[in-house]
């Protein structure tokens, strides 16, 4: 199947749940397994949280944009902010690295996104914002799982 969606929302923490819910509904027709669904939800949550608290520092006036497409059993998603950008992408993607230890950020966001997706790409310009693109492939629906 083919489908496409765009969602924009204010950079406030409450919208982390909104993004998870919307994207979960969007991929529901793919009949993902429970593990696939919760991994996908986790990726969405990490990417959107990064945009809100790192990109915009929860400024409550800028917009985060999520765009997603479904092509057969592959989902491609981009999370875009026009915020501060990432100083050093390689460093930002290192496990346990965080610029906000005082907020108890674990620095695991990118590690999780990398592990749970089938490809991630980060484009960022200081002062101009960040675009995180990832892809996740969903397993074919078997007769057994259809009978669930």
């Amino acid at each position, binding site marked *: 199947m083919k489908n496409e969606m765009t969602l924009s929302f204010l950079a406030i923490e409450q919208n*982390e749940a909104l993004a*998870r819910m919307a994207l979960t509904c969007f991929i529901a027709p793919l009949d993902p397994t429970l593990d696939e669904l*919760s991994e996908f939800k986790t990726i969405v*949550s990490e990417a959107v*949280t990064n945009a809100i608290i790192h990109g915009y520092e929860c400024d409550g006036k800028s917009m985060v944009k999520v765009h997603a497409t479904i092509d057969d059993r592959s989902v491609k998603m981009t999370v875009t902010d026009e915020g501060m950008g990432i100083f050093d992408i390689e460093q930002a993607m290192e496990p346990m690295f965080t610029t906000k230890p005082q907020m108890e950020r*674990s620095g695991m966001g990118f*590690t*999780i996104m990398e592990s749970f997706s089938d490809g991630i790409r980060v484009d960022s310009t200081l002062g101009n914002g960040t675009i995180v693109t990832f892809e996740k492939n969903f397993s074919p629906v078997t007769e057994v799982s259809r009978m669930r």
Partner: protein
Amino acid sequence: MATITQLENGIVLITLAGELDNHEANQIREEVSTAIFTGKTRAIIWDLYQLGFMDSAGIGLILGRMRDLVPVNGETLILNPSPTMQKLFQFSGLGEVVRICTVEEAIDEIGGVVHEK
């Protein structure tokens, strides 16, 4: 949502439900910290059995409380995470404190008093 219970022997039981993301972690952090600093906490048991979702904010919250317990050499156990959450704990080096067991069994492991039901 977090339900915090002070058990005997300095054990704090934190039962999490719903979805634990950055927003929720910020909502419950103070309550959890206050509970730990009241009384002589020497161990925390996190029961995730009813937790439907968790991202890296949950890791941050739990790691933060483990740091709170460092001065007293305190223990932490994480009970019953979902398979996806278990992976997050593995990535973060917390795999060793994850248990699939009942709260009673966890209390027993830590060396607390298990009350008859």
